[in-house]
């Protein structure tokens, strides 16, 4: 068969090595390929729902599955199987490691909410998934960043920090496109556990 020489065939997908070595281009696809794929994800879901809330929920569910797998992959590959048990630890893991692996850069900022104890916000000037998307006026506050919110929720849930995660547009002065903020609201049990630790 043509070209089989160097590629080792693995009988079981679980035996494949997780990293592909130093071949940088093997680990990447073009941004447009991803943008096309994501736009089809959104368009397909638009045909399946009647309202915006349902669409956001479906995008979030899609992201949740991605997040759960990303957590497993990164814990094994980048963190040497160490678990995060503290709130700030998992937040900085999401803000730095997860963002860096998925989007090529750390998130722009991580803030604690001022009004509520259980709220944290990760902000990004332009989310990768939103880059080629414009929201029509009649869709109101819909944000395709719901997919990323789902990813974050998947990571947090898998790590034992259940939370409600949503994506919002925050208009910025002097900038044409609004900033996107991922709002994370942790469940009661997480805060109680955190209080017991400190």
């Amino acid at each position, binding site marked *: 068969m043509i070209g089989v020489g160097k590629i080792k065939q693995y009988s079981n997908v679980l035996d494949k090595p997780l990293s592909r070595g130093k071949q940088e281009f093997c680990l990447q*696809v073009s941004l447009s390929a991803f943008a096309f794929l994501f736009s089809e994800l959104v368009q397909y879901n638009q045909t399946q729902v009647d309202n915006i809330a349902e669409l956001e929920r479906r995008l979030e569910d899609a992201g949740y599955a991605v997040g759960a797998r990303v957590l497993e992959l990164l814990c094994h590959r980048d963190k040497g199987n160490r678990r995060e048990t503290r709130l700030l630890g998992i937040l900085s893991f999401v803000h730095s490691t997860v963002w860096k692996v998925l989007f090529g850069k750390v998130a722009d900022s991580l803030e604690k909410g001022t009004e509520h104890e259980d709220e944290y916000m990760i902000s990004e000037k332009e989310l990768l998934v939103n880059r080629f998307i414009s929201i029509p006026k009649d869709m109101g506050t819909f944000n395709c960043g719901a997919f990323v919110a789902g990813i974050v929720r998947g990571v947090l849930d898998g790590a034992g920090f259940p939370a409600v995660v949503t994506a919002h547009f925050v208009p910025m002065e002097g900038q044409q496109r609004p900033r996107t903020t991922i709002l994370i609201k942790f469940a009661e049990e997480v805060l109680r556990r955190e209080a017991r630790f400190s």
Partner: protein
Amino acid sequence: MAPPAPRTGDAVFANVERVNAELFTLTYGAIVRQLLTDLEEVEEVNKQLDQISIFRGYNIGIRLIDEFLTKSNISRCVDFKETAEVIAKAGFKMFLGVTASVTNWDADGTSCSLVLEDNPLVDFVELPDTCQGLYYCNILSGVIRGALEMACISPEPNFWCTHQGMCLVRLATHPR
């Protein structure tokens, strides 16, 4: 002024913005999972997945061709053989970062196979027993079909996926 020389797939890929392939793989998995959840009967799933994937892939293909033509400066292909080569080398490389090889030409040169050995769409994917007949990467055949139709060829791509994740696209065109 002479037209700019066509750029090889590698050169174009080095110049486009890139994202992590794992994000791409996981997003595609999410799409397939949603389709499987929405269409419950396995037989229905296979039938509909072919159509729906082709439909979705087709939508991608008709827009992807514009970007491909702009960025790669490829001149018009003389015949179908050249078309297949261009898709395999420049097209796949530019978007997925991997090249395909063109094999199995039939006698009159109207159909061939594109073999993808290292397909980012199927990384670490295993099909469960209930979905063994699923053409997981069928979106690729839709993309190629859409792109070629916009470039004024009417192909009939069909798709197979082997167990080891090497993917075959069978391209056939009408004899002139």
